[in-house]
């Protein structure tokens, strides 16, 4: 431990408080009064946009300087999506895509 126990505990408490505050913020602001129409609209439309953002977030480490830095991700995403459009089985798509990715990064690239 490079720092004191007290300071370590304080770091944990600050990080926990900040994260939980952000999770609670929409409920603190809009919890008691009727939700404004535009917020209700955002609540309905955002999940798809956020999920697309999270996919970009997961792939943000890709660089196009060498094949091994982007090909495994793109191939595995294509396999996941292909499996899902074909069979519509969530678990099959996820485990198939993950197995493909593991094979690619461990054995191919």
């Amino acid at each position, binding site marked *: *431990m*490079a*720092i004191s126990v007290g*300071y*370590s505990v304080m*770091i*944990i*408490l*600050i*990080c926990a408080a*900040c*994260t*939980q505050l*952000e*999770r609670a*913020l*929409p*409920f603190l602001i*809009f*919890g008691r009064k009727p*939700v404004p129409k*535009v*917020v*209700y*609209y*955002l*609540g*309905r*439309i955002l*999940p*798809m*946009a*956020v*999920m*697309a*953002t*999270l*996919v*970009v977030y*997961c*792939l*943000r480490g890709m660089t196009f300087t060498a094949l091994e830095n982007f090909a*495994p*991700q793109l191939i595995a*995403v294509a396999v*996941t*999506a292909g499996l*899902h*459009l074909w069979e519509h089985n*969530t*678990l099959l*798509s*996820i*485990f198939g*895509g*993950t197995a493909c*990715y*593991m094979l*690619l*990064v461990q054995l191919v690239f």
Partner: protein
Amino acid sequence: MKRNLLYAFKRTLPIMAGFFPLGLAYGILMFNAGYNFLWTGLTSVTVLAGSLQFLMLDFFAGGAPVFTIIVMSLLLNSRHIFYGLSFIEDFKKYGPWKYFMIYSLSDESYSLLCSYKPQEGGDAKTVNILSSGFVVFYWTAFSMLGGLLGKLITFDITGIDFALTALFVVILLDQMRDAGSKLPAAIAVVSGVLCILVFGASNFILPSLVVTVAVLVFFRPQLERTLAVMKKEDE
């Protein structure tokens, strides 16, 4: 109850697969920094945010000033502000469990909540509470396990964390199929890629979400029609 439990367990399996290597890695790094599995457990159960917890290792190593810690943790997890917007009305039905649902509103719990499909004989509230419970449990248990015996694991699990990427891809595909329009996803991807080019890969997510929200609000008249279709499917 058994049916709800089984269903919740089944839909959290991909998250279990993704959290296994991430949690182990985190526990090992904490152990190497001089924090045993109890510290790891305390951090995981109170913060419950993977990316911030990895960043906290820097705070532990260098004793960053309080102001820096506050700003960094607020910025890193700012996307969570947007998650609650979709559940302001819904969580009112959860009674005291509402606070647990807000506390556990991570990327993974959020994606499960967004992808819930009613099951015959199942109860949405129970399944969602159990699913979030599993997510909290996996993260806490695997990270503590990393601190306890991480060095004993010898088989190669490189790449298993792709399970989380695959989970988000699958949920996105389902949402695009069910909605009348794929435009929200297209807006988010374009905004994400542009923001990576402008702000860099490690800082893009907040500006990207702000731009996406602004564009979605701008195109509200057109997109409200999409929602009318989605609403019909819900009922």
